[in-house]
Structures are given as structure tokens and as C-alpha cells.
């Protein structure tokens, strides 16, 4: 924002700006395009993330690991908690990116069980990571080394992972551990919500149907959607949510909900009657990934990624966010500093639990027919 556009740029854009269509482009250009995908380390790292998704010191009102990063490298961090939904954030950035403009961010974090992360990579709207600057890359856990949307991890690195399962409020109902129970038990009628993500709810239902959510076919997709639709029609499912199921579940308007592991861990401290479990037939595992959007500073972003892949740093973040860390060695560090957390199955799922989790098919996420059918189930 501080860099005024040069006279030459202004003339060039002015000529283009004569046509009505590029007016939005001209306006966006006024936002400045500093930074640039260049090869030099910048003074400032511009980092967009989800709210409450990094360690935070309530008293000092600081993010300790970000301060440690600045102390170590001299790079200041502008930290933005401006991603509330993959779809909305993508909607905001897609226009400048499609016109080859920078969005003034060096790192953004998007989820792999929605279509937008894969879309960013397919469209070429990301910069390649500089692996030479990320020696800690070796700490990436094996399960995350080769995801379908980025098989060689050229463009993305995991930030945190989480599991999709079923949460219930013990004051209202006994354990709810299968999708069948959630969708069909008359005692839960109208007191159930499901997540609006395509990878979450259809994924869980496929597992319950005995199908494989990591390899979706028309047949398994239709079977899942029909089941969800009939649970909507019967009034069993009250509505579809993002993470706004948390409050009604906590206050007892809901008996049970399809829910994310980390949300429930964070709510447990204020409401011990909340329970969360992977359904007996399995659950979904998803990962939020850091990427460098076009125009972001590759060395600066890579330096930061290397920093958070140090298990000592990762452990500080995990201790606060309580999601599943992708950095091996994190549990060992936490066993000393926070043994309670190090034992939690929600944060460090055992191999037995992990064997029951499945990644959702990333190709199915971008299937236009599925997307439209799913939006219809959601009511729009």
C-alpha cells in the first residue's frame, strides 16, 4: 500500500483502463504490488491464517512464536487472522490472482478437504517453496509427504491437521458413535447438525456405507448424498454448519453434531459434558496447508516454514491450538512441558486411531456435478 504505482505503470494501466472491464483491475492495482516474487529476503512476513490458530499470550497480547521468529531472523511478522472460510477467502483473492497481481501476502493457509487449495495449485497461483531454506522439511510426518493435490510437496506444507467425527453433549444424549445413529435415532430428531464441507459430511457417510471416501465414484457419491438428503427431509438434520455448531451444542440446543476434533478439545475446558469420537466405521482426516500465493516472497516464507518445522516451535503452537501437528518430534517435546496434552488422542491420535481416518478424494472435490448437487442438499 505504501508503494505508489510508477508513472509508466499508470500510463499502461490508464490505456487499458479505458475499457470498462479493467476498472476493477485498475482499482486493485492501487492497492500496490510491493513484495514481488523476488529472490531476496524481505523485512516483513505477511501471513494470513485462521482465527485462534497460533499460540497467543493473553496477558502480553503477543504471539510468542512469532516474536521468537523475529528475534531469530530479524524479520517482522504482519499476522492477519482474516481467513474464516476457504470459500470466502478464495472469493476475495481470486480476482487479483487471476490478473497476475500480488495479494500482499507471503503465506496463506487453506484446507485440503475443500476444493480451493487444489485449485490454487492447478491454476498456478502459488510460488514454489525454496526447499534449500527448509532443512527442517525432514521433520514432516510420513503420512503427509505425498498428498494427491501436491505429490512432491513442491508448493505446500501442512500447518495443522484435524479429524472430522461426531461430537455429542452428554447431558442430552448417550454416546453417538455411528452415522446411522446420528441420522436415524428418533430421539435425536431435529437436534443434529452436519458440517457443510463436501469432504466432511459426505465423507463420513461414505465410510458408514462401507465405501472408500478417498476414491469417490458416482455410485458411492449418490448413495451418500441420498442418505443425507433423506435425513434432511425427515427433519433429523436441523441444519448445516461451519464451526458455528459449537455454541448450540454446548448450550444443549443440539444433542449431537458432525464436528472437528480441535474445536471440541478447546471447548472441553469450559464444558466437560462435551464428547467427541471417531465413528466406529472411521472418520476423515484433513489438513490445513501453508502456501505462498503468487507475488509473495519465497525466501521469507520458506524461512518461516523452516522455523515452524522445528519441533520446539511446533510444540508451542500445538500447546495452544490443540490440533494434530504435522511435525514429528512434537509429542516428545510436549511430554516434558504438557504431559496431559501429549496423551490426548485428539491431538496425538494413536496408530490405531489413525488407521481409522481417511483422506477425502481431492479430485471429487473439484467435480462440478458433485459441487452443484451438494449445494442443493445444503439448500441453495
Amino acid at each position: 500500500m505504501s508503494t505508489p504505482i510508477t508513472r509508466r505503470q499508470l500510463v499502461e494501466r490508464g490505456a487499458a483502463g479505458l475499457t470498462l472491464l479493467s476498472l476493477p483491475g485498475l482499482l486493485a492495482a492501487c492497492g500496490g504490488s510491493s513484495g514481488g516474487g523476488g529472490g531476496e529476503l524481505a523485512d516483513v512476513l505477511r501471513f494470513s491464517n485462521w482465527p485462534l490458530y497460533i499460540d497467543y499470550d493473553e496477558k502480553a497480547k503477543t504471539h510468542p512464536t512469532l516474536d521468537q521468529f523475529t528475534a531469530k531472523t530479524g524479520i517482522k511478522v504482519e499476522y492477519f487472522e482474516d481467513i474464516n472460510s476457504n470459500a470466502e477467502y478464495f472469493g476475495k483473492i481470486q480476482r487479483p490472482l487471476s490478473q497476475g497481481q500480488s495479494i500482499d501476502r507471503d503465506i496463506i493457509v487453506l484446507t485440503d478437504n475443500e476444493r480451493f487449495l487444489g485449485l490454487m495449485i492447478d491454476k498456478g497461483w502459488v510460488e514454489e517453496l525454496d526447499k534449500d531454506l527448509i532443512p527442517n522439511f525432514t521433520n514432516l510426518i510420513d503420512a503427509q509427504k505425498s498428498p494427491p493435490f501436491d505429490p512432491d510437496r513442491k508448493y505446500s506444507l501442512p500447518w495443522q491437521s484435524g479429524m472430522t467425527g461426531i461430537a455429542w453433549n452428554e447431558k442430552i444424549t448417550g454416546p453417538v458413535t455411528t452415522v446411522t445413529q446420528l441420522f436415524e435415532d428418533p430421539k435425536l430428531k431435529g437436534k443434529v447438525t452436519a458440517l457443510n464441507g463436501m469432504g466432511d459430511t459426505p465423507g463420513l457417510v461414505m465410510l458408514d456405507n462401507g465405501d472408500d471416501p478417498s476414491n469417490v465414484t458416482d455410485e458411492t457419491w449418490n448413495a451418500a448424498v441420498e442418505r443425507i438428503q433423506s435425513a434432511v427431509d425427515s427433519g433429523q438434520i436441523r441444519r448445516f454448519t461451519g464451526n458455528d455448531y459449537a455454541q448450540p451444542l454446548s448450550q444443549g440446543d443440539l444433542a449431537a453434531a458432525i464436528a472437528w476434533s480441535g474445536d471440541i478439545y478447546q471447548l472441553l475446558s469450559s464444558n466437560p459434558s462435551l464428547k467427541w469420537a471417531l465413528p466406529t466405521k472411521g472418520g476423515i482426516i484433513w489438513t490445513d496447508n501453508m502456501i505462498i500465493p503468487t507475488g509473495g516472497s519465497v525466501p521469507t516464507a520458506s524461512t518461516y516454514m523452516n522455523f515452524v518445522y522445528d519441533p520446539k516451535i511446533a510444540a508451542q503452537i500445538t500447546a495452544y491450538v490443540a490440533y494434530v501437528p504435522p511435525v514429528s518430534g512434537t509429542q516428545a517435546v510436549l511430554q516434558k512441558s504438557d504431559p496431559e496434552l501429549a496423551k490426548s488422542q485428539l491431538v496425538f491420535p494413536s496408530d490405531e486411531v489413525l488407521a481409522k481416518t481417511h483422506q477425502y478424494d481431492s479430485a471429487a472435490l473439484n467435480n462440478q456435478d458433485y459441487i452443484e448437487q451438494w449445494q442443493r442438499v445444503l439448500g441453495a
Partner: protein
Amino acid sequence: MSFLHRHKGLTPYLLLLPGILWLALFFVAPLGFLGYQSLQSGTFDTGYTFDWAFSNYWNAISDYHEQFVRSFVYAGIATILALLVSYPLVYWIAFRAGRWKNVFLILIVAPLFVTYLVRTLAWLNILADEGPVVGFLRDIHVLGPDGRLLATSVAVVAGITYNFLPFMALPVYVSLEQIDARLLEAAEDLYASKRQAFLHVTLPLSAPGIVAGTLLTFIPAAGDFINAQLLGTPRQYMVGNVIQSKFLDVLDYPSAAALSFILMALILVGLLAYARAVGTERLTG
């Protein structure tokens, strides 16, 4: 100065210039772009091309007429409710509140100091299944023991009514406040009863406020999607929810643009019919 002296006729246009430029840049240009987009076809992956795809419009109407109808029904009910609630309220403030007028007006406007989203989220608590409102309605058997308000049309309409109430109340207040009290005295001198004085003097004089309030309430309410999303279920979704999902989730920009244009056109037609029915002089006061 001398330039303006020589071209006196230009002055009004120069005065209009900032406003026209503003509207051209921030209203006409985006609207033109949206119109252009609504006639494109293709997908996000392959890119959209402009080919006069009027089918976007027909498809939007045939697929989503239900949500269009629902939007107008909800907005209509909410507008009427807002009028019924706010008219007696601001009448009392304008004629009876005396020196406390400003305090009460601030109380009406105060909710607007809080973001729209937070206000709507508050209704999640107010209407909660185990909350006081539902509890009371169950006690008096308006709701059955398992009855609820959240996730019903009632909750959505109530949310819309609440959120747009100030936009109804303020214009009505202004028109009531401007009424010359001597006219009411004159009516009484001519042996009008209180009721007749109200019907023949106060009500007609406050009509411009009612018309302005209805428009300010109905138009944004018809395009609202927050209330349906948070307080309703998929069965309560309005056309705003469809547009949001087309834009953000499906990435089908042409359909979203076509839906927006249809909504705009329907509102405009409704507006013209309304203006016809009440007479344009009432619209402008």
C-alpha cells in the same frame, strides 16, 4: 471564475460532476461488469466466455423460483411486522416522550452500533431451545413439549424484522415529528374524535415516512441471507443464500450474476408498482 461567468449554464453540471463520477465508478461500472458476466458461459476451471448466454436467466428462474418467492414473502411479512411494531413506538416518542425523545431515539438506533452478524447471533441465544422464550411458549402450550423456534421460518422472519426495524422506525418518526400540532387542535375544534383526527390528519401526514420506511426495510430484507443462514435451515433459504453459494462455493459467477439481476429487476418492478399505487408525491414527501 471568468470561465463560469461566460458559461453560466454549466454550473449545475459541474455541481453534479462529483456525484456522477462517484456513481459511474462505483455503481454503473460494477453493474455493467455484472451484467456482462451474467451472459457468460463456461466453468471456473476452463474459464468463462461471453456468448449472450440468456439461458443463465431462464435456468435461474426455473431452478430457484421457490427461493425468490420465499424471499419476497419473508421480506413482506417482516416489513409489515416492523411497521406494526415501530409505528406505535415512534408515535409515542414523537408526541409523548417530551424531553426524553432523544434518549429513546438513541435506544432505537443503538443496536446498529453492533455489527449485523453479532446481532443475529444474539438471536441464537434468545430463541434457544432451552432459552426463556421457548420455555415460556411451551408453558402456555403455544409450542409443544418438543417445539422449537430456531431453525423455523418464524425465527428467520423475526430476525429480519428485528434487524431492519430501525430503518422503518426512523423515517416514520421524522414524518410524525414534523406534524404541526395545531392541525390536530384544528381537527378537534372541528369536532373530530381522537380516532378521526388520527385517521384523517396524523396517518396521511406520516405516509411519506411509512413509504420511505417500507422501502428501506423491504429492499435489503429481500436480499438478506444472514438470517436464513443462521436462524433457519435449508428449507428457509432465500435467494441471497443461493447467490452466495453460487459465487463462493460453486464458483458459478454467471449464474450468480444472473440471479442478482433478476432479484434487482423484481425489486424494481415491485417498487414501480408500489409507487403507482401510493402515488409518487408520497415517495418524495
